[in-house]
């Protein structure tokens, strides 16, 4: 019974994968991806690509200059992840 379920599950998975590959290839080839099609006036945030040497520095400066909120939240996610691993790996003694 469980062997039949495994083969059925594999067949469904293969069908889903083939279907999604066909769908995605139709989408990519026939319909153009509307790159920045609905973009407003956002050109000021772009960095010129020409001086190749400084590119890494200017892109990472963007992270600190404009995304401090997400970095702060990410610090709390890291604290939460450490607490999660502690909770999972500490021995579970009956009564603390």
């Amino acid at each position: 019974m469980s062997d039949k379920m495994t083969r059925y599950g594999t067949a469904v998975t293969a069908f889903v994968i083939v279907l999604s590959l066909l769908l995605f290839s139709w989408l990519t080839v026939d319909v153009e991806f509307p790159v920045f099609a609905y973009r407003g006036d956002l050109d000021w945030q772009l960095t010129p690509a020409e001086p190749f040497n400084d590119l890494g520095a200017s892109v990472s400066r963007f992270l600190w200059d404009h995304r401090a909120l997400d970095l702060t939240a990410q610090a709390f996610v890291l604290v939460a992840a450490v607490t999660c691993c502690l909770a999972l790996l500490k021995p579970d003694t009956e009564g603390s």
Partner: protein
Amino acid sequence: MLPLMPYLVAVALMLVTGLGCLMIKRDMVRILIGIEIMFNAANLLFISLSTQAAGFIDPFPHSVVMMALVLDGTVIAVGLAMVMNVYKHYKTIDVRKLRRLRW
């Protein structure tokens, strides 16, 4: 200005590979690797879209990807801690043995 189509094809292949890995593989660590592949497909799509303005680079997706990498890593770390706990109970990491919770 890089051509976008090869990158879209690569993203689609990675997404499908990750999804298949998640659904078919019986080893728990490989399921976690499948999840990681799917996250990296989304990151690749972000980076390849940042090059599409002619002569310029958009630094916004690069910062998004840098933060998404960290978040993805934490999820995988907690997943591995859970795999260790599963091993302690079931003495195997075959996900087909985890069928005691039915219906």
